[in-house]
């Protein structure tokens, strides 16, 4: 019962943060410096991680599907599987999960440490809304940076798939690219490019929420950082399921 009560309190507090965030959207013009810093930290600092994540997702996808398709003599479909799989599913999800771990942990631990050392109270006491000052720049930076990072993961994934297709299944590079690009329809691009915005919003708000509610010293900080990563990851998978369902049943 107590756990259920805490969960309701949690949803209520999260709702207040999202409300403050949306109401304070105009204050972003006062926080551009912080937003640019966050864009740099989320974007360029996460680039190697996303490059590697995307590349290996594409490579594994090509190997797994290639061997199955070979049984039916349909290895020429590898390019189509890799491009659709990367753009619609693996690109956004792998990027989302990697950024949930990296950006989510960063947001939660930074804000949590600020909470424990009274810096959040200091912001409020000196007339700033912590949600506008801390959560908003991080969320806007994530919203701006997640799409290009996802695109990079998509491209490196398809490149990885192409290498496997050429080396293992002897598929011509020109043929691979031609079929890979032709396989993509507008709805695939729409789904693949819409997901990062939702992932960015929820990773950022969930991780900042756990940072802001940190208490209980270093143990509490560690616990909330774990929660931020775990809950962000779960929300990414749930959102991905919802999107996939919509694509197949509505669009």
């Amino acid at each position, binding site marked *: 019962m107590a756990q259920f009560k805490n969960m309701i309190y949690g949803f209520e507090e999260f709702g207040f943060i999202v409300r403050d965030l949306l109401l304070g959207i105009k204050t972003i013009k006062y926080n551009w410096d912080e937003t640019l810093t966050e864009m740099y930290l989320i974007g360029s600092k996460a680039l190697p991680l996303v490059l590697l994540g995307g590349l290996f997702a594409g490579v594994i996808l090509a190997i797994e599907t290639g061997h199955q398709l070979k049984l039916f003599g349909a290895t020429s479909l590898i390019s189509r599987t890799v491009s659709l799989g990367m753009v619609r599913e693996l690109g956004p999800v792998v990027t989302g999960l990697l950024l949930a771990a990296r950006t989510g942990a960063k947001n939660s631990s930074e804000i949590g440490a600020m909470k424990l*050392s*009274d*810096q959040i*109270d*200091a912001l*409020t*006491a*000196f*007339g700033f809304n912590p949600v506008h000052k801390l959560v908003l720049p991080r969320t806007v930076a994530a919203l701006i940076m997640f799409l290009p990072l996802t695109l990079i993961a998509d491209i490196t994934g398809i490149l990885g798939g192409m290498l496997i297709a050429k080396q293992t299944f002897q598929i011509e590079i020109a043929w691979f690219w031609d079929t890979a690009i032709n396989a993509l329809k507008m709805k695939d691009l729409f789904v693949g490019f819409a997901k990062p915005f939702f992932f960015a919003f929820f990773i950022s708000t969930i991780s900042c929420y756990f940072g802001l509610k940190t208490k209980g010293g270093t143990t509490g900080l560690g616990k909330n950082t774990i929660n931020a990563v775990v809950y962000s990851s779960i929300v990414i998978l749930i959102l991905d399921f919802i999107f996939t369902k919509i694509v197949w049943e509505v669009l």
Partner: protein
Amino acid sequence: MIELKNISLSFREKVILKDVSFRIEDTLTTVIVGPSGAGKSSILKIIAGLWKPDSGEIFFNGINVYHMSESEYQTMRKKIGIVFQSNALFDSLSVTENILYFLPERKSLTVSELNEKAERLLNFVNMDGTGDLYPEELSGGMKKRIAIARALAFNPDLILFDEPTTGLDPLNSASIIELIEKLKENGTTSVVVSHILNDVVELGEQIIVINDGLVVESGSIEKIMTSDEPFVNKFFYQLSKHNYIMKSNYNMYELINV
């Protein structure tokens, strides 16, 4: 002048403050004293507007702020500076940036005007030449003085100090006490939360003793020391046993044992 009337506060089932009432007169230094967990810091956070009490009224110069919205309270906050026990300095900012970070006029002043303001404040707290350092490069006493300079940047009418000398060596404690006294000379009202007897003796013109969320005694140091309240006697006697008071015109130990 600040007046708290019948303030009560609880977090879920835990009662923090019960019907707390007192007045803080202008230019007097008020010390709120009591054991750990008594509710002292909660009072400070209520005055600063960080926490909203469950019931009661808070008056700032006769204006009831209890029902004020967050945005209305912002104007009131500009008149209050706060020095946190942990100092709450921003690690990623230099000393100068920490001092200037909260200034509302930061965008309208030139860089040289801002630097001049920061230097003036650093000079006031005897920290000249430290503007380019970062908090991690400072000692506990230095951090406290920077936190005071930051609180002063607004030219507040009232400064709240949460345990300003806790964790500092005697020399640093003395310098912080001197700073608070210097603020009084400039006409700033200070409210100090402390459980250190030396702070009470050195700073307290008005003392409020809190125990278990209740105000058990208030008044001048003489009134507190001659109180019949058993908790006050016990608390100050225990404090005096662990504190060696260095003040020529006061010997607390003798006063208690009279």
